[in-house]
């Protein structure tokens, strides 16, 4: 780890603290939704899902199911007391379809019963008559029928057509990338518990407490203050519980409202995989013009996303794809067009990276083709085109503190790139069926919700008279350790140790109107809000401390010079005469000082004009790059990763161990997406790989032999709380290096003279077919 400067507050520097819930996790004591003791009288809900991607619902007969002893309720669209509408940004998604199903797996009816077995039996007794209709499944079909969620969007700079006409070289092509199943280990779940009056508490496995609250109220015809959403933690989410958790919570809430009993709805793995949306598959076309040196001068790209059956987050995801179509490269003339297609797949949704990986993949293909066209090393072409300080993106935001040339240089050194190239060539010459290849991908990732108003957060902090702290914030803990980081920030601000702080569940009663925990902003936003709250407390404690120091120790010190550290407050000139924090707090309390604070934070300066395609959507950028050394077995098509090198600029990391874990986890997840995680559906739009026996995510055997992560820690002007940067999503894109490495390995078969027609993901099948094609 490189450390140029120490800008962080002392309490944050030092050994990074452990996972706040780590002790509970490793002891098996941490509780997820269905681990909580069951409330008395709880019912279990099961769903009847549409077997057809698109079908007219002619009739639903629930009589037999309802008559089964032990069944408390059978519910369909007819039973929704409020609006049968769970759309958020766009209101186009019913809770239950009333006339036509829009995807295979869409819930058509719900049974709540005394046990899961009874509920499942009753689901089997519901008779639905459908009239099957022709579904739209692919991007091509949707484009042909003009099935778009919104008119196409554009970001434009310069004169692309003229620049293409003038370019030394012009290439064009199409690029497709596949979907990805989230495979969070904890499946979708919610428990709804009725209170008095109209109150319902939803223990929902969601990343979006406020959204669930708002929409559950809408569906039930209640108001937001009737509904409480409480989330202690999620067993992984990766975007798959940002929007896609809402429906299950609303269904549980509906069953609870109807029966006035607690209801648990938990998807089985096979249901979760078959019914829920995934990462958006993309099909894109591009034209690129470049100089004889390899400098990109013009780039026209059309990014087409398969949005699935409802708008969901597709427009925001598409927007992020467009805003990352440039990735790390300065493009003088650019035209970026985006379309989100309506199809009859489960509504595709947020997945770590949120469209950026798909947009980036296209321009990375372009970089490789430029290199091939000119006979240059792709790494050199990437460095040549990388943003230099202050150059602006096609949407007009300057790339401040751009550093890719330097990071790529570090990567090259870390991996001993030139030597490695030589070794790989030697290996390939001496092996018939095993081939090696190298892939490199730089990443520039913008941090902020591109919907500017979402960039706000609140925290609620109480200091109790024994000197312990209860801290609530709007972020949802899902393994990214937002709780650890936010607690670190509050602890640093108050100068107290972490073990005085309990981070509470995310609860809409304590922190309302919270934005989703997403977009890698969880720690930035909630940490800043917590810092704000802790700062208020500190300010209120300071006069009390100054008085106490004078009374107890005869020290006169102005309030703003006080040092809050190590659970004590002192005059820095007299560190040996402190006031213990607990004593100070107690003194403040008896003097009627308010020990509770609400902190609020709104990211300054972010805005984006969608119509013009211009603005400053991001608070700052994250920079990094990765290299993967891959080995392909041409007999089976299997590939394996031998080495991974990552260089990632963390600015002043709040917790380097957490950040390293995020980088490693995201990289392997991206590697899975790029290699053997394959989402497939049949001709009727039903997902085929719906269990982990057919959909494969990486195992520990996929760990590279060398996994070298260099975190470049240094102060950055463009950063967030205590000089840190968001970390969750960008490293996922590093996984694309594996795909490029596999392609490089295959191309060794033709001496790197022609390009392999390799599908994404690079499954064994894709590898074998590409190799056969290349061999001719």
């Amino acid at each position, binding site marked *: 780890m490189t450390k140029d400067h120490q800008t962080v507050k002392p309490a944050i520097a030092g050994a990074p603290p*452990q996972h706040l819930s*780590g*002790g*509970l*996790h*490793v*002891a*098996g*004591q941490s*509780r997820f939704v*269905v681990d909580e003791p069951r409330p008395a009288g709880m019912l279990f809900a099961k769903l009847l899902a549409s077997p057809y991607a698109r079908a007219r619902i002619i009739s639903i007969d629930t009589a037999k199911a309802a008559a*089964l002893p*032990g069944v408390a309720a059978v519910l369909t669209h007819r039973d929704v007391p409020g609006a049968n509408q769970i759309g958020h940004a766009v209101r186009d998604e019913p809770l239950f379809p009333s006339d036509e199903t829009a995807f295979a797996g869409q819930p058509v009816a719900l049974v709540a019963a005394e*046990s899961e*077995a*009874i509920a499942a*039996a009753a689901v089997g007794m519901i008779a639905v008559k459908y009239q099957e209709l022709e579904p739209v499944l692919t991007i091509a079909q949707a484009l042909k029928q003009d099935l778009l969620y919104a008119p196409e969007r554009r970001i434009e700079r310069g004169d692309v057509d003229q620049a293409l006409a003038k370019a030394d070289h012009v290439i064009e092509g199409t690029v497709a990338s596949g979907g990805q199943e*989230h495979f*969070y*280990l*904890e499946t979708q779940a919610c428990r709804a518990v009725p209170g008095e009056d109209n109150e319902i508490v939803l223990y929902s496995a969601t990343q979006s407490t406020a959204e669930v609250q708002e929409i559950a109220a809408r569906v039930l015809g209640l108001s937001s203050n009737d509904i409480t959403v409480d989330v202690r933690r*999620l*067993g*992984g989410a*990766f975007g798959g519980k940002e929007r896609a958790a809402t429906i299950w919570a609303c269904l549980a809430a509906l069953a609870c409202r109807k029966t006035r009993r607690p209801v648990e709805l938990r998807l*089985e*793995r096979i249901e979760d995989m078959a019914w829920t949306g995934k990462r958006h598959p993309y099909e894109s076309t591009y034209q690129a013009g470049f100089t004889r040196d390899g400098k990109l001068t013009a780039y026209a790209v059309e990014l087409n996303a398969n949005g699935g059956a409802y708008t969901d987050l597709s427009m925001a995801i598409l927007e992020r794809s467009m805003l990352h179509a440039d990735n790390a490269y300065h493009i003088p003339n650019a035209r970026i067009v985006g379309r989100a297609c309506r199809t009859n797949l489960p509504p595709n949704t947020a997945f770590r990276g949120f469209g950026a990986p798909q947009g980036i993949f296209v321009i990375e293909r372009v970089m490789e083709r430029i290199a091939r066209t000119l006979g240059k090393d792709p790494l050199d072409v990437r460095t040549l085109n990388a943003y230099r300080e202050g150059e602006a993106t096609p949407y007009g935001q300057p790339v401040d503190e751009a550093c890719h040339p330097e990071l790529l240089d570090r990567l090259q050194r870390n991996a001993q790139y030139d030597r490695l190239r030589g070794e790989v060539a030697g290996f390939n010459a001496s092996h018939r*069926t095993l081939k090696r290849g190298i892939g490199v991908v730089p990443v520039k990732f913008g941090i902020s919700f591109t919907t500017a108003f979402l960039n706000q957060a609140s925290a609620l902090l109480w200091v109790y008279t024994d000197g312990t702290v209860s801290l609530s914030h709007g972020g949802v803990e899902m*393994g990214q*350790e937002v709780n650890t980081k936010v607690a670190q920030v509050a602890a640093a601000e108050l100068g107290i140790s972490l073990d005085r702080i309990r981070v509470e569940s995310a609860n809409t009663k304590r922190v309302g109107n919270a934005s989703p925990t997403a977009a890698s902003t969880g720690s930035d936003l909630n940490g800043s809000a917590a810092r704000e709250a802790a700062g208020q407390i500190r300010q209120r404690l300071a006069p009390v401390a100054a008085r106490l120091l004078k009374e107890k120790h005869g020290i006169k010190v102005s309030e703003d010079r006080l040092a809050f550290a190590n659970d004590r407050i002192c005059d820095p000139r007299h560190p040996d005469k402190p006031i213990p924090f607990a004593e100070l707090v107690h003194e403040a309390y008896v003097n009627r000082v308010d020990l509770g604070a609400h902190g609020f934070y709104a990211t300054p300066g972010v805005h984006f004009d969608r119509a013009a395609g211009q603005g400053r959507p991001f608070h700052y950028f994250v920079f990094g790059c990765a290299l993967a050394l891959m080995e392909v077995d041409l*007999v*089976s098509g*299997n590939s*394996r990763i031998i080495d991974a090198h990552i260089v990632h600029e963390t600015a002043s990391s709040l917790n380097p161990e957490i950040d*390293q*874990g995020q980088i*490693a*986890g995201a*990289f392997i*997840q991206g590697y899975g997406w790029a290699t*053997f995680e394959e989402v*497939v559906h049949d001709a009727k739009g039903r997902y*085929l*790989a719906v*269990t*982990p*026996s*057919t959909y*494969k995510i*990486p*195992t*520990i*055997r*996929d*760990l590279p032999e060398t996994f070298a992560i260099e975190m470049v820690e240094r102060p950055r002007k463009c950063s967030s709380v205590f000089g840190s940067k968001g970390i969750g999503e960008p490293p996922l894109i590093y996984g694309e290096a594996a795909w490029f490495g596999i392609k490089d390995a295959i191309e060794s078969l033709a001496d790197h003279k022609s390009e392999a027609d390799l599908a994404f993901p690079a499954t*064994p*099948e894709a590898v*074998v*077919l590409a190799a*056969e094609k290349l061999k001719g």
Partner: protein
Amino acid sequence: MANAMQTVGIAFFLNGREVAANVTPGQTALQLLRGQFGLTGTKEGCNEGDCGACTVAIGRWDGGGREFRYRAHTSCLVPAARLHGTHVITIEGLGIPENLHPIQRAFLDSHATQCGFCTPGFIMSLFCLYARNPDPSRAQIGEALEGNLCRCTGYESIFRAAASIAGVAGQILPPYHEPVAQALAGFDRRLSFAEAPLPQGAEPMDYHRPETLERLFDLLWRIGDCERYRIIAGGTDVVVDANVKRLRFRHLVDIAGIPGLSEIRGTDRGVSVGALATLTDVTEHRLVSAKLPLLRAVVSRMASLQVRNSGTLAGNLATASPIGDAATAALALDATLVLATKMGERRVPAGSFFKGYRRTELCAHELITAIEFPEQDGPWDFRKSAKRGAVDISSVCTAMTARLDGSKVAAIRIACGGAAATPVLLAGAAAAVLGRELAPAAIEQAAQAAAAEVAPIDDVRGSRQFRSALVRNHVVEHLSKLL
């Protein structure tokens, strides 16, 4: 009684304490631990053996009472009744946050837990590894953990944690281990059966655990209709069918109590593997390593350690999946299945055992009691192609055994799974090289013959075109080994 349901009274040790429970025939150990015992540290991630979140350690006296061993099992696939007479250790039995077990401490110190959902399963897998092997290699750690999925960490921190545990050998087994092991040495309590009212919506199911072959056959005869019962050995297919495909069986006939069936022993021609020998028993047995290296190689690449600790070789053959890996080995090794009924035994060569898609030579009420393998005496090769390198069902799996006479092929068998309705012998490919000098041209001919004689299907694990290419590629590699 139509509205009654059978319950099975079991007794076992749970985290050092003796406990008793009444379980239902269809109940899994995971449901029992989380439900009746409230031990929610054991998680359900898939309910089909693939994620490892439900991993627990099950300890019992092994190898005829020589050694007390803890093995990792995916509790979602273990029938609860099977816990009778064992020592189950769950994550709660290792340590508490104030007093962590060394493996738990290592996970905490290495930041090897993020969302925490997978963590207990990983720790229990490692517990079983370190309980026996204080200083595992990188590969052994990989083997122990490849059946546990984590979606958060990317495994880097988990691997670091796992590798950092070495050196605490004496602290792995909990203090209650020794007295429990002693108590179980003399444990011979019988299962007790009772009846309870049948819950609404449930179908009645009976669990049987005959203690001799004779009683088994009597039982099957009494049940009659083969559609009404399922034999369960390791349960790694049967319980997946029940959990995921929701198949229900009127009678679940557990053969684990029949003595003598788990033996692996030498015969005058080779090795006999009893029907209850687990896949792990096969990989660990010295006779298999010495005489049947092909079998060992194949079985080592089946499933995950947790599943191999339950699943049996016989079960893999009986289930007759077109991509059963062990079936491929049995065909290539020219194994003979010993089949038994009330009327006596018969021997059927593996080559005539598979009759059609998931159909076998097994008649009504017939049981595989053993699989007899002749000792290997020539070159062999094995290849498994699957989407993911570790823990995956084959797209295509092939195995070859051969005998060379000088540079001529004197005998050869090439077996193939995943390219037809059953695992098959590639007779055409064999014929193309039998009696001939091996040369690239002959190999090419054999590969083409192989591709022509298989009839693969399109499914999620590969298209027909891809599978044909794999068969061809595999055959080329096998035969090239003979050059």
